[in-house]
């Protein structure tokens, strides 16, 4: 049985309640609108504000999950100015070396919490405490502008990603065109050579040495070396003619 997001959040709430920590609403913390979707649960522990972000996906392969978790940690790093601690919460089945690299969490300072199917919660990697920037004095106008800027940045990031994909597809098309060009060049050269040899002699000759079963068939420069002088040309051309 796998855990869905709602179950994980419910288990987290129970965990928080048992420790007498206070749950906060999103409106009670200073957080730009564009980042609110990253946070699933906010808790106050004394003066500290702690963010929890839950990741639970349909069944994916380990490399896909690994990539997804990296992206999530990268996104969560944006929250470190607004909370004292930030945790990524994952189903326990994701906590294995083929998926997770603890060093990335430590480098970014994001903590990791695992949730078992029976609701057991474990702090796998502690979060590094951050200095929360005080936004109390920040005017609503500034907050609005920052939020707009962040939205703009995220749109630009999206556009860059789209362009990156486009560019890589253009590069692969160019490679394939280059291959075709090389072939065309070779073909042109061989046609040129063929025209040259046809001008000199319209009739080519073949010499057979029956003792060696070797045939010398000169068919000009137009055909590759393995076709020229090949006794099978004559042998195969006789197929169906009286055999």
């Amino acid at each position, binding site marked *: 049985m796998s855990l869905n997001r709602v179950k994980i959040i419910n288990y987290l709430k129970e965990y928080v309640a048992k420790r007498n920590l206070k749950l906060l609403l999103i409106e009670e913390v200073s957080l730009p609108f564009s980042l609110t979707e990253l946070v699933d649960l906010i808790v106050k522990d004394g003066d500290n504000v702690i963010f929890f972000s839950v990741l639970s996906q349909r069944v994916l392969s380990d490399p896909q999950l690994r990539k997804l978790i990296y992206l999530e940690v990268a996104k969560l790093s944006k929250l470190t100015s607004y909370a004292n601690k930030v945790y990524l919460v994952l189903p326990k089945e994701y906590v294995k070396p083929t998926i997770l690299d603890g060093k990335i969490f430590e480098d970014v300072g994001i903590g990791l919490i695992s949730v078992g199917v029976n609701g057991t919660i474990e702090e796998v990697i502690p979060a590094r405490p951050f200095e929360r920037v005080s936004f109390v004095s920040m005017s609503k106008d500034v907050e609005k502008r920052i939020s707009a800027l962040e939205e703009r940045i995220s749109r630009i990031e999206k556009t860059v990603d789209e362009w990156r994909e486009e560019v890589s597809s253009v590069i692969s098309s160019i490679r394939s065109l280059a291959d075709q060009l090389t*072939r065309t060049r070779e073909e042109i050269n061989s046609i040129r050579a063929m025209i040259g040899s046809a001008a000199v002699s319209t009739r080519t000759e073949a010499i057979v040495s029956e003792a060696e079963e070797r045939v010398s068939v*000169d068919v*000009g420069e137009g055909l590759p070396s*393995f*076709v020229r*002088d090949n006794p099978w*040309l*004559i042998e*195969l051309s006789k197929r169906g003619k009286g055999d």
Partner: protein
Amino acid sequence: MIVVVSLGEVMISIEEYRRKYAFGEDYGTSEYKFGPVAERPDIIENRGFIIDKSSIVYRIAGITKNIIVGPEVSMYLGSREDMARFLIYPMRDGIVSMDDERAWNVIYEITKYGLLKFKPKDPKFKGFYVTAALSAIAPKYMYEKMFDIHKRIDEEHGVVRAVTIIPQPLAVAIAQKTITCIVVESGHGNTQITPISRYPIRGAVISLNRGGSEANAITAEILKDTGYGDLVHEEKLVRMVKEAIGLIPRDLGEAIRKAREDRERFRAIFKVPNTPTIIDLGDNSWMRFLIGEIVFDPENEIFESYYKRGMPRPKDTRLGDEIIRGTINLADAIIKSAQKTPLELQPHLYKRIILSGGNFAWKVPEEFKDIAVDAASKIKMLLKERNIDAVVELTKDPMYSVWKGCIVYSIAVPDDYLWSWRRMEGWYKWR
């Protein structure tokens, strides 16, 4: 334009259309080589990636194809589990099972990929003359399926004017410019001996159930015996060890004696690339000669103890009414095959024995030339021991020789020579 070639009184003409639109296809177990007239073919791996319709990639990327083939496949590979589930290698020892629908779908996609890659824009283009090469032991249903696939692709894209299928050994003989010969093709799991005299002599074809895999198996046993048993599960590693230390002995008894006398000279050491692991056979380095010997004479009594300990013994095979032992000495198998041909043809066949396939690509290091030999010399010696003077050679261009033979076949066979199931030759047409 027609190029006329005269041969005494025989004249052949090669149509310009055929020069331009002859097409060769070599369906190897691991690679598919294809292309029109050129010095070399294009190559892709003979495999396809089945797209999982429930996958995120399928839903997000808007993929419309069910099977991916060609260089694109590597972009879809994920975990090992994905590879095992979705990556299909359609052939096993050159054969596709009759009812393996997924495998046949991969063959269809690969064939389509090859033909469409070279589809010209020339308005005079009416389709390629395609010669496809299959294993000499390919059953009749494979021929039928292959014809159906080409017909279907032509109906969809108009790229096949006519198609024919030839056995790979015949293609090798054509590429080697040899009309009368015996082609011995040895791949990973199978060795085919095919006498050819203008036509493949189908009643004399022997297919042995052994190949490079036997040399791999003995290498794995040697590694186990010398304390490297933990490495034998990596098939690729075992193959690398085989290729690095395996030698074909001129005479096995003599080679073992010399290797035991002069242990340092014959010491087999292999450093596994990009790892700190070093394999050192030490005093057992004489065993390196067993790796080469088993390809030619798995019946040697020295291998009995390995068979008893569980190393698979090659399965027996059938030639007409006769049962041929899987472990038969390769020279004896060649003789048995030749004996199925007319008596007066046999000396001509022995004049040219052509070895092709990866299982004959053995190196002979300069310092061991007194004791080790290449595959051609080994077979020549084994035949000599049986009072047969033979000329044995390795294919000059083992990678491309089958494809080259297909191109010559496509160029030369007359357009009006139509397919006959009795002769198993000719152009198969539908329009």
